[in-house]
């Protein structure tokens, strides 16, 4: 294993940032600075073209948060050296004083927050991977991906295109505040194999994701899944839309993850409690799912793309048991929501980038494993579907509605797969109905972290989702 390196730039600039923080503390009773230097590369190969670029999420910059006397103001910037300290302070003063006064002059009240009270922590997290990104050169990576594309295209006539995409991301962050001095550096990688097929007027695609706190070793996992992608495309080309209705369904780990994330996870983001937007606030310590259901979220709950030492507000990451034996135990929060609600912070304050505000966001979210076997789950179904994978989902924290789109479903009649495929499959319904109907839960858990999670339709952050196979009653259409 090779150790990842904290950004030399951040190490170099840290002293000057401490100077800036100290100067700001002469005026503001709380000051924090998050400094980010994250680099990544994205390699995309398809039938007729290749692209190479910095990861779209590569970033280098700073965000300062200050207590303005009543609440908090923030300023983001990406150009800094010691000589600019006075300029930066002026920008903060404009934000925390001039702009606020202008708004107050219009009769707008500001919400009161206490000053963040921190314990003294000085910690560093430097991760390890098998193969550092720089140990394999760009040309070799691109050639490997191009080979996967050629191999995919050769295997079936129905393919219009076959794509191999690999992204590696080396994240470095430091956080300094009144009492905290934190740093972390780790690498995550994502990859996809994507097949696009056509029969007549019908065009369908399927993809297989790969992810983890891994380096270039992720590339080794891809070849074995080429056939699966192509087989799924063929299935989708033969699929029919479902007859809308309520059915016994089995959700594969990817789809279980979508349900955990969209249907429930967003609903227990506690910044929604502060806004009175979360139905979950009324159900703490009450049954919201069958007693077979457990659900986790946390930076330390699993080792996947959203595992870290500290979040973007300097709160140490945790493992939150959200549902235990079907009972809603805890939500997750950012530091300001935690203060408002007088609960322990969980380390879920995340920003899309240093340019954006921190919100309560999920990290690694999954249902716990159970004791059942998939074969038994299939055998137990008289008429229903095995639903696999997903393309999208949307949260509804206020009313606990579900909207998820499963990639496809395999029909089950009298305990056997019939070979009939339905697609696409929209899952709707009321979250507690679905969760309370969960009657079987498989042992093994799988997580995947290739996607990005939005809050509404913006603020995209890296998360992982997953779980076991679950059997439930669901409404599909």
């Amino acid at each position: 294993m090779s150790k990842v390196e904290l950004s030399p730039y951040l190490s170099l600039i840290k002293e000057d940032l401490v100077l800036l923080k100290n100067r700001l503390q002469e005026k503001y009773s709380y000051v924090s600075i998050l400094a980010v230097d994250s680099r990544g590369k994205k390699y995309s190969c398809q039938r007729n073209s290749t692209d190479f670029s910095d990861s779209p999420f590569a970033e280098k910059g700073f965000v300062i948060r200050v207590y303005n006397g009543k609440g908090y103001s923030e300023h983001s910037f990406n150009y800094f050296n010691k000589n600019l300290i006075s300029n930066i302070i002026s920008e903060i003063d404009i934000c925390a004083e001039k702009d606020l006064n202008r708004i107050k002059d219009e009769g707008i009240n500001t919400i009161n927050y206490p000053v963040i009270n921190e314990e003294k922590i000085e910690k560093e997290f430097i991760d390890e991977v098998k193969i550092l990104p720089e140990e394999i050169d760009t040309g070799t990576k691109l050639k490997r991906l191009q080979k996967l594309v050629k191999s995919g295209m050769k295997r079936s006539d129905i393919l219009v295109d076959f794509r191999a995409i690999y992204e590696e991301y080396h994240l470095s962050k430091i956080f300094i505040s009144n009492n905290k001095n934190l740093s972390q550096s780790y690498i995550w990688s994502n990859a996809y194999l994507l097949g696009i097929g056509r029969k007549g007027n019908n065009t369908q695609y399927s993809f297989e994701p790969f992810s983890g706190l891994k380096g270039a070793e992720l590339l080794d996992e891809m070849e074995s899944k080429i056939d699966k992608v192509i087989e799924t495309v063929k299935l989708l080309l033969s699929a029919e839309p479902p007859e809308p209705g309520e059915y016994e369904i089995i959700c594969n780990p990817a789809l279980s993850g979508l349900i955990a994330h969209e249907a429930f996870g967003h609903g227990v983001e506690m910044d929604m409690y502060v806004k009175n937007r979360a139905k979950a606030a009324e159900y703490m310590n009450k049954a919201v799912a069958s007693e077979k259901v457990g659900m986790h979220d946390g930076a330390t709950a699993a080792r996947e793309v959203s595992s870290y030492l500290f979040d973007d507000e300097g709160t140490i990451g945790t493992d939150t048991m959200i549902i235990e034996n079907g009972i809603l135990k805890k939500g997750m929060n950012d530091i300001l929501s935690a203060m408002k609600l007088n609960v322990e912070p969980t380390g879920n304050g995340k920003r899309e980038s240093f340019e954006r505000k921190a919100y309560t966001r999920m990290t690694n979210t999954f249902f716990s494993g159970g004791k059942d076997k998939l074969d038994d789950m299939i055998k137990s179904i008289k008429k229903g579907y095995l639903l696999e994978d997903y393309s999208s989902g949307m949260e509804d924290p206020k009313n606990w509605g579900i909207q998820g789109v499963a990639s496809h479903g395999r029909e089950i009649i009298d305990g056997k797969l019939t070979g009939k495929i339905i697609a696409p499959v929209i899952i709707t319904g009321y979250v507690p109905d679905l969760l309370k109907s969960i009657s079987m839960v498989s042992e093994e858990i799988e997580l995947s972290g290739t996607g990005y999670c939005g809050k509404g339709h913006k603020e995209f952050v890296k998360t992982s989702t997953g779980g076991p196979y679950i059997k439930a009653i669901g409404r599909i259409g």
Partner: protein
Amino acid sequence: MIDILKKLLSENSNLSGWKIIEKSIESKELFFIKQELDMNRTKTVTKYHLTIYKDFEEDGEKYRGSANTLISPTMDEAEIEKKIEDSAFAASFVKNKWYPIADSKSKKISEPTSNLAKSDFTQVLPNFIKAIFENDIDEKSFLNSSELFLEKHSVRIVNSNSLDVSYIKSKGLLELVAQSNLGSEEVELFRIVEFSDTDYEYIKQEVKELIDQTRDRSITESIPTQKELPIILSGESVKGFLEYYITHSNAKNVYDGISRAKIDKPIHEDEIVGDKISLTIIPNLYNSSESAPFDSDGYTLKDTVILDEGIVKNYIAPLRYGTYLDCDITGSVSNFEVKAGYKPVSELKKEPYLEAIAFSDFQMEPMSGDFGGEIRLGIWFDGKNYKKVSGCSITGNIHKSALDMRLSKETKQINNYKGPSYIKLKNINIAGS
């Protein structure tokens, strides 16, 4: 920084060309819970997106490799030199058919004339706040939370062909969550409003409409699963549905084989009995946050007809893919206008229908043409009575639904889209709530 980059690039003899996009963004952001300020933010960032081109030949064919990299203003010359070297090395493995980069003949044709871009944001913030809350006056149906983002973008594009163009634009975004306590259960609806000018009346109207719709959502009923009932899309889903045509007119997608659109041929292979789509791309659309005089190549943009009565007249073709397809270059334009239909919506609504006013998340999957979503607010009409409904979902496929599609005579603008306010579709599955 641009001068430093140009100097270092010109000193590197391994390159066949380069492009630099300098983008500076200043922003002010306000976050409200009800009508109280929860947080405020500001931002000042400048980034340099550098593209390196490297040409090579193989078996008599010309190829162009490229690599895109981000240059931070904190980087010194040694770091930048390394980035250029690494990018040049990477570009030599990127084997794409050769294409040109924009030449210096690019001239500004129109410039966004946004009052917002000319404003001092500190001074206009109160005007936006007034506009947001002016119609938020009902104790039972009100704004739960809102977020306002005002951004000023200064963009400059230079390349190794002596191109040097620049412009300033503004981008506004307002996220709204409205809540109503009128029914047995509290309900909410959500909307993102994008804009680029100081059109306060537009903001007021959007807020009012959202609050009114949320009030309606509080008294909805369920409907059973059914077929053979036409759907009328309204609001954001109209734009989402019509974006299928943007995807399939895109030259990259034609080149990749995703789209089978051909110039002077119908966009749909099957015969259309309903309204046919006429679509134009418009670089400068009032109050659109996507308006710009140039695309990211630095190519000068102009209004172009893409579809005319369902026939493909042009592809939306940036320089690279337009060259591959040997078609007219339009550049990349995000704003689009679709010609209105012939019938007023009152005629479209004469027979039974389900109108989808607000979805949880309307999805149009452009490759397959599958679309649908869960309806958070709809109107169900059985020919005699109206019912406000919620919780049902629809699924359809554009290849079936577009054959007999009706566009309303009434039009609406939603940020970068201008066109019919309503679309009536058949052959849709409705899953009841």
